[in-house]
């Protein structure tokens, strides 16, 4: 599965994109965030306030309870500030 990070999430993780193999226990966006936090201090820091992190599954906004089973690409980012 491809993971993307944007804005300050990207700055904190230190990477823009990566491909990961997920354990079977990770079934929702929220599970994925919990799993990412265990991957080192940068990830723990980036996802510390997980309630403000937004996610998108295959280019559509997704809630933290959304299922990720068929996802090809999941992105994490702060609330948007365009316009």
């Amino acid at each position, binding site marked *: 599965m491809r993971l*993307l990070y*944007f*804005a*300050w999430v990207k700055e904190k993780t230190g990477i823009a994109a990566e491909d990961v193999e997920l354990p079977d226990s990770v079934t929702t966006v929220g599970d994925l965030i919990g799993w990412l936090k265990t991957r080192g201090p940068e990830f723990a820091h980036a996802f510390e306030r997980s309630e403000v992190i937004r996610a*998108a599954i295959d*280019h*559509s*906004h997704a809630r933290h309870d959304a299922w990720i089973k068929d996802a090809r690409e999941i*992105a994490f*980012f*702060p*609330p*948007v*500030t*365009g*316009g």
Partner: protein
Amino acid sequence: MIRVQQDDFDIAAEIGRIKAGRSDIGAIVTFTGTVRDQAGAVTEMMLEHYPGMTERELQRIEAEAQSRWPLQACLIVHRYGVLQPGDNIVLVITASEHRDAAFDAARFLMDYLKTTAPFWKRETGSAGSHWVEAEANDTDAVARWKKHAAE
């Protein structure tokens, strides 16, 4: 129509394209968002976005506006990259027979774009750089349209 680009846009040219060869339009509303220097506190702005999702999200918003109002034309142009104070960020144009539809649709597009299009602003100034925080009243603005739809 939607476009995501680094280059600046030309309002007069865009209006010209919308009006070309037709005389059934009665009202054209444009919204232009520009970089504010905030009393000198901002010297540069960097706009990051999520290529692929950005286009999809803007198309979704445009389709929603087209379904709510009788629009003869609808355009969203959003820039990304490094911008200076005074530079254009976003352009929305709506055209309709009557002004209410054009005004409502333009405002709807901006309200939704502000809360769902994946752009992030990073401001640089005398106090260093920081990512701009989302504003709660932008979310309130979108809630207002949802309420309208439910009425």
